[in-house]
């Protein structure tokens, strides 16, 4: 690998604190003490209702602040970045060793052995178009009837992101809502998401993405980490295979164009590799 895998950085720069030391917890404790004292003194001594109400509203804000503190990461983001780097490095090494140049097909959990994964056909000419059978939970799989129709079934960042959010929350929903839930809610990786769909083409605009990276060679196969998450979520929502056509970054938004493949389900092959 010629590219610098360590260039992948999750931003913005983290403080590296645990949840208990989160600023939200400190804020919550301050608001709770201040609000309680204000409400008590205003009610019992000053007998002034607006100040009492202000104290009570501060207590509600304290509860909200504690709740937001619970959602803060428990491990430093640098550690997450290192885990991401090592995972990408392993995937890149396997793809490079096998000389795979084909684009990944993102498969939903129903087809890919329990969780959404990316299928990388070993031969570019054997790109699956309409027929993908239910695949076994293995690294090397046969996805078609032909002898050349073999590929790698790899976990991507999207597999982890979708698993973290919960598969049952995605299946059968609308694409924009699901992407918004995962990218802005569960993972806080972007500010908002817009989706335009015309037949099989799906264009996704991710506003203010917070994963930054250089163009690594492996991204030509599986897409950038954010595009990978987008593809995995769409695959899970639609229940069919999806490929990343292109992705481009302009200003504060990432535009990912994907293509949904028509799916013809086939029964699981016994003894598939």
């Amino acid at each position, binding site marked *: 690998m010629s590219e610098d895998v360590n260039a992948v950085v999750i931003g913005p720069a983290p403080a590296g604190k645990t949840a208990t030391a989160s600023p939200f917890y400190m804020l919550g404790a301050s608001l709770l003490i201040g609000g309680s004292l204000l409400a008590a003194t205003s009610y019992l001594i000053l007998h002034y209702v607006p100040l009492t109400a202000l104290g009570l509203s501060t207590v509600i804000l304290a509860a909200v*602040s504690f709740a937001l503190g619970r959602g803060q990461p428990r491990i430093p983001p640098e550690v997450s970045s290192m885990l991401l780097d090592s995972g990408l490095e392993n995937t890149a090494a396997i793809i490079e060793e096998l000389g795979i140049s084909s684009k990944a097909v993102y498969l939903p959990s129903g087809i890919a052995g329990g969780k959404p994964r990316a299928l990388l056909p070993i031969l570019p000419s054997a790109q699956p178009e309409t027929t993908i059978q239910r695949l076994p939970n293995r690294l090397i799989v046969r996805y078609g009837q032909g002898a050349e129709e073999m590929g790698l079934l790899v976990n991507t960042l999207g597999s982890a992101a979708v698993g973290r959010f919960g598969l049952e929350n995605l299946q059968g929903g609308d694409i924009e809502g699901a992407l918004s839930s995962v990218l802005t809610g569960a993972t806080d990786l972007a500010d908002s998401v817009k989706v335009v769909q015309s037949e099989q083409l799906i264009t996704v605009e991710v506003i203010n993405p917070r994963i930054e990276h250089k163009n690594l060679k492996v991204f030509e196969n599986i897409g950038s980490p954010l595009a990978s998450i987008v593809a995995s979520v769409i695959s899970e929502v639609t229940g069919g295979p999806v490929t990343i056509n292109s992705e481009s970054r302009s200003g504060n938004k990432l535009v990912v164009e994907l293509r949904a493949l028509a799916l013809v389900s086939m029964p699981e092959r016994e003894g598939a590799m």
Partner: protein
Amino acid sequence: MRLNERYMFSMAAAYALTTAILAAFNEDRLDLYLSVYIIEYFVLTLLHSPLKPKTSRMLDATGYALFAIFVIIVAIQVWEILFGGAFL
């Protein structure tokens, strides 16, 4: 501004504004203040959903507590309308 920060900021702003407006009208019913705060809590939480699962669970718990307070306030008002006089 991130979703968490936007949520916290908008709720603080809403509460401060509500208190200022009601105080300007010389409102001295504590239950009215609380009712408006609780409604604002639910509206703003809904507008900023979805949040992270752990955050959502704790906000849900807070929501149950606030809803219980709201029900008690309404029950007291109904009691006073039906039977007259102050409840306490």
